Every structure is written in C-alpha cells, then in structure tokens.
C-alpha cells in the first residue's frame, strides 16, 4: 500500500508514500478520491513523495478543487523537496495556501 490513512478526531490523515507520477496517478486518484466524500478535514502528508510530475500535480489540483467545491478542509503538509520545487516553479504555493517548511539540508542534496 503506497497510501496510508488514519482517522482521528474528525481528521483524515493521509500519507502518500511513493512518487506521484503518470505511472502512479491512476491508482492514487482512485484511492484518494473516496476520502473527499467525508465531512472530515483532510490532511495530506507529502513528506515521502520522492518525485512529482505534471500528472502528480494534477492530482493535487484535483483534490484541492473538489475539496473547495464540497467545502472540505484540505491541507497539504510536510511537502517534500520535489513537491516544493514544482509548486514554486508554477507559482502555486498561494493557490494551495499551505505553509511550506523548507528543510535546511535540501539545498545541499
């Protein structure tokens, strides 16, 4: 299982533990979409997303869009370096509106 889900105090915590690319997009969308139906808050942990491409980005955009229309609170947490790179490249950090914590050892890697 590349996606781990935990429910706690009305918050669904999802951790994506894989790359988010065209190869994983279909599976990830199918696994993530059902969680949009709850009236829970959604917290998606991206710390273990090793790689993200346009397809992966689209999944995030899709989740955000669906969440907004259904009035679900969605936050992306612990962005990995590759996710931050993409969001910054496309000037999307504001769109998602989540605080990004930049780890000190990223730039050196």
């Amino acid at each position, binding site marked *: 299982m590349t996606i781990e889900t935990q429910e706690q105090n009305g918050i669904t915590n999802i951790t994506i533990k894989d790359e988010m690319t*065209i*190869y994983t997009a279909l599976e990830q969308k199918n696994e993530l979409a059902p969680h949009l139906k709850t009236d829970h808050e959604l917290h998606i942990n991206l710390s273990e997303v*090793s*790689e993200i491409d346009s397809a992966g980005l689209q999944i995030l955009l899709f989740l955000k869009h669906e969440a907004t229309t259904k009035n679900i609170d969605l936050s992306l947490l612990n962005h990995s370096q590759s996710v931050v790179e993409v969001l910054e490249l496309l000037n999307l950090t504001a769109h998602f509106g989540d605080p990004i914590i930049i780890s000190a050892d990223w730039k050196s890697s």
Partner: protein
Amino acid sequence: MAKTIMIVDDSASIRQVVGIALKSAGYDVLEACDGKDALSKLTGQKIHLIITDVNMPNMDGITFVTEAKKLPQYKFTPMMMLTTEAGTDKKMAGKAAGAKAWLTKPFQPPTLMAAVSKLVLP
C-alpha cells in the same frame, strides 16, 4: 536521484559519445545495440527517456518504440527518435508509433543535451 536515459543505436561509437555526454551532465545511462537488445533490457527499472536510432539490425527503432509502448512500465516514457534530415516520413512514422521527440543526425553533443533537457532535466 539521477534520471535514467536509455540510448539504443547500432553504432558503438554513437552510444559511447552519447553516453559520455549524458553521464557528464548527471544522467544515468543504459545502452542497447538494437531494438531487440533494448526490449530485453526493459525489465521494470525506471527509465525517464529512451533515445533510439531508426535504422538498426534485428529490430528497427519504430518497431521497438511500438513494442516498448505496450509495456505498462514504459507506456508513458518519452521516446526520442534519431532521424536523418531526409527522413521526414520516418519522423512521422516515429511520431505515430509514440516517439514524439526527435533529433536530426548528425548532431553534436550540445544539440543532444538541449533536446534531452527539454524532456528531462538531470
């Protein structure tokens, strides 16, 4: 994490030079000497770009691209075709098979690197 590029060409020297250029830019490189050899080397590892010649013994580039696109792990892998300036029809055939990128032979390393970087940066 270094990106992996496969180069398929029956000319050992082309493979070597392309390999040197790609490695020095920071890519991992896999080599194959024709379409058949290349197919046998597609064993599930992650490949970010496949560069293939058209005119090769055993299995030509267009057949190879067609076959590779059938493999689930590689159906979305970008493919780049090495064509000659006269080979517009080959380019079209390559595009139809799924190789949307191309590079005209003969090329020098800077041209190769420019074309590769459009598809995948190291």
